[in-house]
């Protein structure tokens, strides 16, 4: 039985509701057919495609978009390759003119080596795109203040990086992402760097609303199985988060603590809140 069958737990982005909390990227696959099969196996409902890879003149002749069923997935075009806000905005407008949805994954990465997002240009592009009516999902550094500013600008999510794109290093930014999760009023999608399913589970366990994975699936020996594994881990992590994990302790503890009596007869009980943050919220505010 899936989590979703247990209780409703939709992910809401830009007014649309999604069941899956795993978003997929489409780069680096060995071919479009295996990419399509991996998308299928992942259960993802949101799929991002680099506009620089799309060739509308080849529609129907094997272009990447021919392998993504627009009725089965929300196609999330991304501005990968843009090095300035102006380039990103122009790409987004071209995508919309080409008949794509108003959703845009904003990527402004002037540094081709680490593909580190430019915080200043990303915020500037977000402001322009939101004024233009786009629903903006920005890839950004794991910077709590930047995420606040992007949310204030009207972004539909924030998408802090777990580690550098394609690095497969996992959730190296965990401490910062925890703060971002604590502060965010929009869904937090951990994007980039998740290398194995347990990384995705870790992000979900600490309260991320979703994860976006690409390289780890695309370059696996068996991308379809890896996609399925990430789906299971994402779901497991979410379920664990909602279940409310017990705080880790340094030493073994008897299952009947000496202070158990305090819970009876109306006596006070120590708080079980996580990291002083209180209980995890159940679902995003609509």
């Amino acid at each position, binding site marked *: 039985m899936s989590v979703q069958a247990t209780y409703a737990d939709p992910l809401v982005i830009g007014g649309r509701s999604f069941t899956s909390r795993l978003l997929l990227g489409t*780069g*680096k*696959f*060995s*071919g*479009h057919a295996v990419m399509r099969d991996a998308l299928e196996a992942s259960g993802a409902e949101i799929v991002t495609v680099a*506009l*620089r*890879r*799309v*060739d*509308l*003149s080849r529609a129907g002749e094997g272009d990447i978009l021919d392998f993504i069923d627009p009725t089965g997935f929300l196609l999330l075009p991304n501005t990968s*390759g843009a*090095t300035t806000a102006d*380039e990103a905005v*122009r*790409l987004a407008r*071209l*995508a919309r*003119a*080409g008949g794509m949805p108003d959703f845009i994954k904003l990527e402004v990465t*002037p*540094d*081709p*080596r680490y593909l580190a997002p430019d915080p200043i240009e990303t915020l500037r592009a977000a402001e322009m795109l939101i004024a233009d009516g786009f629903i903006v999902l920005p890839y950004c550094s794991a910077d709590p203040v930047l995420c606040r500013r992007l949310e204030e600008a009207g972004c539909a999510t924030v998408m802090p990086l777990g580690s550098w794109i*394609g*690095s*497969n290093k996992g959730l190296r930014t965990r401490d910062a992402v925890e703060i971002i999760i604590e502060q965010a009023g929009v869904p937090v999608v951990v994007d980039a760097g998740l290398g194995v399913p347990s990384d995705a589970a870790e992000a979900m366990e600490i309260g991320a609303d979703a994860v976006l994975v690409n*390289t780890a699936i*695309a*370059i696996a020996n068996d991308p379809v199985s890896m996609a399925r594994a990430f789906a299971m881990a994402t779901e497991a992590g979410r379920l664990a988060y909602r279940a409310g994990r017990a705080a880790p302790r340094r030493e073994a503890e008897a299952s009947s603590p000496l202070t158990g009596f305090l819970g009876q007869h109306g006596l006070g009980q120590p708080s079980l809140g996580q990291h002083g943050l209180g209980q995890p919220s159940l679902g995003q505010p609509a």
Partner: protein
Amino acid sequence: MSADAGRFAAELAALDTTALSSYSLGVSDGDVDRALGAEHLYPRHVAALLSPAAAARLEELATVASERTLQRFGRAVRLFAPLYFSNECLSTCTYCGFAKDLDVVRLTLTPDEAEAEARLLADRGFRHLLLVSGEHRVAVSPDYLTDVVRRVAAVVPSVSVETQTWSDDTYARLVAAGAEGVVHYQETYDRTRYAEVHVAGWKRDFDRRLASTERAADAGIRRLGIGALLGLAGDWRADVLAVAAHASYLCRTYWRTDVTVSLPRIKPCASGFQPVVPVDDASYVQALCALRLAAPDAGIVLSTREPAALRDGLVRIAVTHMSAGSSTEPGGYSHPGESQEQFAISDERSPAEVAAMLTAAGYDPVWKDSFPLLPPTQARVDNRGTEVKRRAQASAF
């Protein structure tokens, strides 16, 4: 070193690639281990990877290089085609089929003819074209070159240029015309050997050439191509070390810029030039492995100079960008055999055949990986001061 030497020239002088190359001849297995395990490679690491000790462990080298390529570039290989638009030349380079004094058929395409070649290549699937010419600053003037770039940029989203070097505002004009990349191979980083093979013409100026990539980057070119022609100088290790250092310098200095590297080997051509020390296939694979580990984020380009079997093997190890179905004579796609080619190609498969090979090998042949750098229908002013309206792009973005 002349006054207009680029900033990398000083770094190259300090590096002493000859000494590093000698050092590599005596490195131990332990040195190779350390180089293979290093996250960031220093020149001594690169020298260790080029050593005879590393040559004995080529499969291991290839495995590590292959993993690095896969992680950074995925299971994808970018395809492009060279578009030769002129073989006229004012330089005399002893190894080149376009050299000034050679008695060969000379041709410079009109802008209309160049655009027709671009359309033909676009019909074959290409969305990235490399415009190539000899070095003739009159036949291929900045005005003419800018015009050709503008026309071709209206046909495909990605245009790179491999022509002579420029010291005026030409690079800035190429950027404004829509050029994404500039390619200048140093050929050899050995000054003495450079002077021996570049007998006359602008190309004879080593420092001017070396500085040109920096000038192109300063002008806003986004993709820089560098490389060395292996077989030109006696010490191939020294040239590979220099290419790695040059790539590293460019990546550090122009952090917004993509860098690609290439190590073409000398091919038979009208010059009749014979390589001093031919670089055998195993050494060639070793050189590309070392380059991959030295510059993990640099695209590695392999042309049709190399035979099919070697190209097919190298995409699994280090190569990320390939040309296919190439003609190296001006106008050779529309009218093959009417002019002089620069060199003979070895891989004569069609673009579709190369793409099919990549698919069969488990790689996605990527035709389009960029977007036009200029707005598609914006009215602009051309280099003669006339307002021009760009045609609607075949490819919307």
